[in-house]
C-alpha cells in the first residue's frame, strides 16, 4: 500500500524554465512533508520541508506547496538549472509516540536540458 505517490517517474525541462514535481498522499495523519534530492551513488540530501499547518514554504529557487484537502503537494524549482538534474523524493511523516518515521514516494527523475 503506497501511502506516498509520485506518479511521474521522469520529467524533462529546459534550463531557465520552471520544474514542477508532484506528490500525492493517502494518510491524513501525515503532519510534515519533505523533499529530498538524490544524485546517483549518493545518499539523499534534504531540500525543503513544510508543516501541515502551512500551505507554502519558499527557500530560494525552491517552493513547496501543500493542499491538504486534496492530499497533494508540489515542488517548484524556478529557474531550473542543469545541476538540478537528479531524482527527487517526496516524503511524509506522522508523529507517533513510538517514534517518527518517514514514508517516501517512488521518486521523479528530473532532467534539465541546457
Amino acid at each position, binding site marked *: 500500500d503506497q501511502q*506516498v505517490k*509520485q506518479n511521474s*517517474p521522469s520529467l524533462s525541462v529546459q534550463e531557465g524554465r520552471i520544474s514542477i514535481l508532484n506528490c500525492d498522499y493517502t494518510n491524513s495523519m501525515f*503532519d*510534515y512533508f*519533505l523533499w*529530498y534530492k538524490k544524485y546517483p*551513488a*549518493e*545518499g*539523499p*540530501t*534534504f531540500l525543503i*520541508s513544510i*508543516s501541515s499547518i502551512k500551505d507554502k514554504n519558499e527557500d530560494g529557487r525552491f517552493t513547496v506547496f501543500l493542499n491538504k484537502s486534496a492530499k497533494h503537494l508540489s515542488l517548484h524549482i524556478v529557474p531550473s538549472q542543469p545541476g538540478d538534474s537528479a531524482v527527487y*523524493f517526496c*516524503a511524509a*511523516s506522522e*508523529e507517533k509516540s*513510538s*517514534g*517518527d*518515521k*518517514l*514514508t*517516501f*514516494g*517512488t*521518486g521523479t527523475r528530473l532532467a534539465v536540458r541546457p
Partner: protein
Amino acid sequence: DVKVTQSSRYLVKRTGEKVFLECVQDMDHENMFWYRQDPGLGLRLIYFSYDVKMKEKGDIPEGYSVSREKKERFSLILESASTNQTSMYLCASSFGPISGNTIYFGEGSWLTVV
C-alpha cells in the same frame, strides 16, 4: 556538519551468507533508520530505532534484523542473504521528532547477492 558513515560502499555476497551493514553517526542523534532503494519502488523503511537497544519494524522487515548497542551505531543484519536482497541500502539518523528536524542519510551501500 552531520556525518552518517556507512562502512561498506560496495559488497558482493553469496546466497545464504550472513551479512552485516554498519552505520555510524557523529551527532548524538536519537533516531536511526535503515532504508533500501530499488528502481520504481523508492525508499522503503526496513527498521528504525529511537533509542539504544530499541528497535521498531518498518515496512519491509522480513529477512532482516538490526542491532543498536551504542547510540552512534546501528547495524543491519541479513541472517541468510538472498538474491532479492540485492539493493542499495541507506542508513539515516535524526535528532528528536522529524517535524522541525530532518533526517540525514549516509552515502549508501550497494549490496549484490549472487
